């Protein structure tokens, strides 16, 4: 091999720094949005917070299904288990949602590992695996909905406190702290994703996604790593559920475990870029404000859309149109397609 050839290769050994491009981007993005709640009106702040929640949910799905290639149609389960774990502990025992979050992450991870193990034991793959995750999430919803012990269909109201408490994750309406709390959690989730993607587990996950038998043939314990990836994904989903509950101060079986939540979890990374670090964030920035935009249009439609006055379902239609456009023109999602363009010189 000639010297010149070797030198033209950008030696990959130098690329493995802790502060790589992704970390720098994370620091810049976080620093840039910290002052945001001071600039936004309260209506806008709630949209910003929905973006944070969506991003966490999307990141969660992206770990298991984007990086790991195990298509989940039941991410509501992890979200819901997080939301319910913290609510039950807080409402019944006055336990801080921070502790509730840790418990919720563990509960979601354990649930994910059990369901995953059952699916893989019976060799469910692809569509069948997705359907199984959906069925298990629905099962959770139905169980919760019919269990008096967890308030059945009524759900939980987070008991209100006076003033602000970081420990109880509760602030007066309109407080910028909600945004900052969410930002801290989202930063944690993004950091987890960056670390995951470069970790051995993340690399094994991608190898397994690309070719399970080949992965196994080079010594990767496939089942163990699939379950590990599910556990990581589930924990992040639980964080989203806890923060959701603390912000809206309310959770019920439909909001927590409903199929709509699972669909959200899929759409966010699909729009942004499946299996990329930043895709879910891009997707959430686009999707989270849709509800508000459509609600505003429906309330006060421009003249040519008069017929929409008082209708509902426009957000769902817009979702559908957006998805179709993305799948048609940007099959790797918005971030994924841009990344491809940039790296393919």
């Amino acid at each position, binding site marked *: 091999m000639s010297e010149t*050839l070797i030198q033209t*290769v950008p030696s*990959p050994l130098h690329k*493995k720094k802790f502060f790589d491009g992704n970390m720098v981007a994370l620091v810049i993005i976080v620093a840039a949005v910290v002052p945001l709640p001071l600039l936004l009106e309260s209506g806008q702040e709630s949209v910003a917070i929905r973006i944070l929640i969506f991003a966490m949910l999307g990141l969660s799905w992206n770990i298991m299904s984007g990086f790991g290639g195990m298509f989940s149609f039941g991410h509501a389960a992890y979200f819901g288990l997080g939301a319910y774990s913290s609510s039950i502990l807080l409402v019944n025992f006055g336990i801080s949602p921070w502790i509730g979050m840790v418990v919720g992450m563990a509960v979601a991870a354990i649930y994910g590992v059990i369901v995953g193990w059952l699916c893989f034991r019976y060799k469910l793959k692809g569509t069948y695996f997705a359907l199984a995750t959906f069925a298990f999430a629905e099962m959770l919803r139905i169980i919760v909905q019919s269990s008096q012990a967890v308030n059945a269909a009524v759900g939980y109201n987070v008991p209100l406190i006076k003033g602000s408490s970081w420990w109880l994750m509760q602030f007066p309406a309109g407080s910028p702290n909600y945004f900052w709390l969410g930002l801290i959690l989202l930063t944690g989730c993004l950091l987890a994703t960056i670390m995951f993607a470069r970790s051995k587990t993340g690399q094994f996950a*991608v190898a397994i996604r690309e*070719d399970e*038998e*080949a992965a196994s043939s080079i*010594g*990767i314990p496939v089942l163990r790593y699939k379950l590990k990836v599910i556990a990581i994904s589930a924990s992040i989903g639980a964080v989203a559920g806890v923060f959701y509950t603390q912000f809206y101060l309310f959770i019920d079986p439909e909001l927590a475990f409903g199929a709509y939540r699972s669909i959200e979890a899929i759409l966010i990374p699909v729009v942004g870029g499946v299996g990329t670090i930043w895709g879910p964030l891009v997707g959430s920035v686009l999707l989270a404000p849709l509800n508000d935009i459509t609600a505003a249009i429906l309330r006060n439609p421009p003249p040519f859309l008069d017929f929409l006055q008082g209708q509902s379902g426009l957000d769902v239609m817009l979702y559908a149109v957006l998805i179709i456009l993305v799948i048609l023109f940007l099959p790797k999602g918005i971030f994924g397609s841009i990344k491809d363009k940039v790296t393919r010189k």
Partner: protein
Amino acid sequence: MSPIVSVEHLGKSFGGLRAVHNVSFNVEPGEVLGIIGPNGAGKTTLFNCMAGMFPPSTGTVHYQSENVTSWSDAKLARAGMVRTFQLMRPFGSMTVLENVAVAAAARGAKERDAMAQAWEILQRVGLDHYATRTSKDLPTAGLKRLELARAMALHPKVLLLDEVLAGLVPTERQPVIDLLLSIRDNGVTLLFVEHVMQAVMALSDRVLVLNHGETLAYGTPSEVVANPEVIEAYLGDEVTNVDSK
């Protein structure tokens, strides 16, 4: 010396189809065993059973005097018995370097070491200038080398190579044959399935001929090519048509 690999009465059936039947052989450490036979003879199935991809229906496989018949492919690979695939199976979205590094990591190398080792192996197999390319963009010859590189990252003691030369044009073959010889010179035991007789003759210490899942002949390369049954079942058209496949 005791054999490093020992296959006894190995059989595998798919439903009614007897893909491999009652195959036995021993391989000494450092030996090169060539495996030939017509299409559908059961060569790949034999490798699949030996490598733990699925269990054989009958018989046993011993590796380093241990009964590994029921071991998983992953466990065997980590223990040093590694196979490559006839149809190349790269981790398509990963770079060439990452493909090899992930194998080194699976063996237990730390992240930074895995990268460094992968880099060395890529230089050795001549893929270093493709290191940062996405692996699915490699041409066939590159993919074949990548299969080899990935297996080498596991520091194998035994390599099961399934048609590494297939799909290569004749001028691309010699470098790969040389590479296999250098791997052998490092003390790796090679079992290789191959249709290219030139390579079988050049590399093998012994040759196993399979036909309809059964052992048709077993011996030195010159013994085997002189065997009338082998000529009839396999070499007849293969000698005149070396470049088929």
